[in-house]
């Protein structure tokens, strides 16, 4: 039966122009979304490059200034920005801490439109108030982006529904089912084969359109490994929807009823479940009010300012290593300020941690429950693949905070030793290197496939007890 189904399914699909229509649709959708994604990645790259370029230029200016000062020449900049002061370097000549896009970043915008991709932490800034959000129109954030992940997660299932909702019911409605049912075959198996064949052809089309668009749009560097993960994810998600269509075809009935049921399932899995889970998550692990955090922060800061001198003394007692080579014992605004910053930071750490902890909890919770809807699983996995998931930005945030600490530490010893910054110190400036996350999940595709296979088996088993009469009536 498979041989004949194979030959004639293709012929039927070609003659009903399904194959042509799907190829066109897939090419257009993949093409447009990949193009959009790639454009965003390009912009991100050029933004980072421009920022780095700017730092290079200002570094050259700094070296020139240092040179002039070291030679005892007059300089025409405000005195507090002269880079012999370590605090001036730390504040006015920051490094770019950039999160470079990954090879597959074009796949999913994820959180990339919400968060920034490069920061320039300074010595006297408050790390915990660093604003990691990007300056983007909230309307854009609300509507989201027409990226490949959107096509795969939202639109592909709808294409599959249109492609499969009437596999059995159309036979009934056009009258060929009676002849078919009088053949020595099992109808359940027949539907199964038809759907598997349609899955096969759609997979072939999807693979080729994906490859074609990637080469046409000119994604580089192309990585086979990453591409294969993308493909595996897409195909297993497609198979999930085919399995659903299989069950609905077997048990529901007329074409229109099938379509309505499948659309209902789509709304449930793609629209409702994620939003309900999100709302439940933020209800269960609510973020403490940020405005209240601000209030606390300001109270602490005010308190710290009042006892600045005391704090500085304590600080130097606790951190003798900073002032080890200081012979002048000069104390300026920054000596006091940096010391109280440190104290405020320590005091606020528990409050700041609260946010991280709640976000972590929400994250863990949603990771556990994501299996309720494969749409969430696939979206999340695509984000991970693209390096644009919440985890990735959390990781980046952590690294930037760490770097900010390193940057501050670097200048603290200069400050407390009352040591000037010189040209010779320039090469020793800390640099930021972004590390990708390592803990990427590899189990998604197998679990998704397992779910699907279970559904298919249930369908096949149930179809054995399916009465032909029920199908025919």
């Amino acid at each position: 039966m498979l041989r004949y189904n194979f030959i004639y399914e293709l012929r039927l699909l070609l003659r009903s122009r399904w194959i042509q229509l799907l190829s066109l649709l897939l090419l257009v959708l993949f093409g447009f979304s990949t193009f959009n994604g790639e454009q965003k990645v390009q912009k991100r790259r050029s933004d980072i490059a421009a920022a780095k370029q700017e730092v290079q230029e200002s570094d050259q200016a700094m070296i020139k200034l240092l040179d002039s000062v070291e030679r005892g020449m007059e300089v025409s900049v405000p005195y507090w920005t002269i880079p012999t002061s370590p605090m001036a370097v730390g504040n006015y000549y920051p490094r770019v801490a950039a999160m470079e896009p990954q090879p597959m970043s074009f796949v999913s915008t994820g959180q990339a439109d919400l968060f920034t991709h490069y920061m320039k932490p300074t010595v006297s800034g408050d790390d915990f108030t660093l604003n990691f959000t990007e300056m983007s129109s909230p309307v854009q954030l609300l509507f989201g982006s027409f990226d490949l992940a959107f096509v795969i997660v939202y639109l592909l299932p709808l294409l599959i529904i249109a492609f499969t909702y009437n596999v059995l019911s159309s036979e009934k409605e056009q009258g060929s089912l009676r002849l078919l049912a009088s053949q020595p075959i099992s109808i359940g198996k027949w539907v199964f084969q038809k759907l598997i064949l349609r899955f096969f052809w759609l997979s072939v089309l999807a693979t080729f359109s994906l490859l074609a668009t990637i080469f046409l749009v000119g994604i580089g560097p192309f990585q086979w490994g990453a591409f294969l993960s993308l493909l595996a994810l897409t195909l297993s998600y497609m198979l999930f929807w085919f399995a659903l269509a299989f069950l609905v075809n077997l048990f529901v009935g007329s074409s229109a009823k099938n379509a309505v049921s499948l659309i209902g399932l789509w709304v449930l899995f793609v629209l409702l479940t994620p939003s309900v889970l999100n709302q439940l998550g933020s209800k269960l692990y609510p973020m403490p009010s940020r405005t209240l955090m601000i209030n606390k922060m300001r109270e602490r800061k005010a308190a710290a300012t009042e006892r600045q001198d005391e704090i500085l003394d304590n600080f130097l007692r606790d951190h003798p290593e900073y002032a080890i080579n200081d012979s002048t014992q000069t104390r300026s605004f920054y000596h006091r300020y940096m010391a109280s910053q440190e104290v405020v930071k320590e005091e606020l750490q528990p409050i700041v941690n609260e946010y991280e902890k709640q976000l972590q909890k929400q994250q863990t919770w949603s990771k556990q429950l994501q299996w309720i809807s494969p749409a969430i699983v696939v979206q999340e996995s695509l984000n991970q693949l693209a390096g644009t998931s919440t985890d990735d930005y959390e990781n980046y945030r952590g690294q930037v905070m760490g770097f900010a600490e390193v940057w501050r530490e670097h200048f603290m010893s200069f400050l407390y030793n009352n040591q000037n910054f010189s040209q010779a110190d320039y090469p020793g400036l800390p640099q930021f290197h972004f590390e990708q996350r390592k803990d990427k999940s590899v189990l998604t595709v197998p679990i998704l496939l397992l779910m699907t296979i279970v559904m298919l088996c249930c369908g096949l088993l149930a179809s054995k007890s399916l009465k032909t009469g029920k199908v025919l009536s």
Partner: protein
Amino acid sequence: MILKTFFKESKEVWRDGRVRIAFAIVLSLLGIAIWISARQYQNINEQHQMAETTERAIWDNQGEKNPHSAAHYGTYAFKPKYPLSLVDQGVDKYVGTSIFLEAHKRNEAQFSAAADQTGLARFGDLTPDFILLFIVPLLIILLGYNSFTKEREMGTLTLLKSQGISSWKWVMGKWMALFFPIFVLSAILFLIAGFILSNLQDFGVFNWSSLFTMFWIYTGYYIIFINIVLFISTRVKKSGIALVLSLSVWILACLAAPKAASNIAETKYPYPTRQEFAANVLKDKQGGLDGHNPWSKESKLLEQKVLAEHGVDSIHKLPFNFDAYRMQKGEEHEAEIYFKHYNHLKEQFTRQSNVYRGLAVVSPYLPTRFLSMAIAHTDYATHWDFADAAENYRIATQKFLNDNFAENSSYGEWAYRADADFWKELPDFNYDPPELRTILTNNASSLWILGTWMVVSFSILLLTSKTI
């Protein structure tokens, strides 16, 4: 004829078990959505109130301090939540809720809810606007896709035609049968929303006319969908195909078009990155007067100008503290720079809005969404308005502080401390969102687009009804 068809169709629709189930599902979803939103709204409002009073207390109790220190210490403007955000959350999740008001710097609103949530948040929320904008049109499709195709399939079409009926009356009957339940459903929803809102404690500026306007806008949106769904049903032979076509329209209008629009808008009229923006502002600032830098060229120029104006030869002889005066002038100059840069942003936003308007040709969702957000005070324009009001307040606050500094101290007297009671004299920050009338005027183009959609789709439906 119209009424007969209406009753017959309504009966048929009501007898269909699936329809009743669908109605029940939509109603209960709405109930949940309203309940969740009401809880959230109350919660946020409490937090807001608390933050506002605490912040004011912090400001008032600064004690004796130099006014410029107080200016650096700064204060916060909090964005209130408006009652109709219960119906449409709009972009609220994606914009910050508080703006730090300090000397020399215009800050953006910080701490958006979306940044504090997981990636799940990007799927959207189960809120009334989600149901109103996405699910109710789906319900319309479900109720109406086979309105005409079923007559074809059952063969009753030929029978009906042989009765010599006037086809537009027949279409109107079917139209009403589809419109009536949807109208009742949304009317119930809006009544409940109004009832809840008018019973909420401290509900701010809720008024029924805004709610009614919103209701009519959604009704218009549904009329457009009804017209489209019925039109497809009259043109197509099979129910299945009618359903798939109607759904495609839905996908295009509600899902694809907004996202595509957002991509096009962003590529054509991009925003600078936050760092870029900051760098640009800094560059402009460096070229101008800096209140803290008495040695710069601009400071010297100002000094000469002021000395000339007052006819004295030394800043010590001025009747006010020149440090504070320079500070204020610097502040004004910086405010101008910010005004320029934020204006650029605003221009980009306006151009982006035009892209969205342009794409409203393929999507009635877009004008509806924008109108609904605007009336609910949850759109981007209201956020701009709030940010501008906060900026004006910041400028006024700086002037208030610098003036005190200038009047009560002499040049070089940085040790001056203002009275501990002085801070209380600063007026509160008050923000009133635009009135309904203003909103409607500002969004007149969206109203026109929606109206055109309605008229055109309705005429096409009626004009083509002869050839069913």
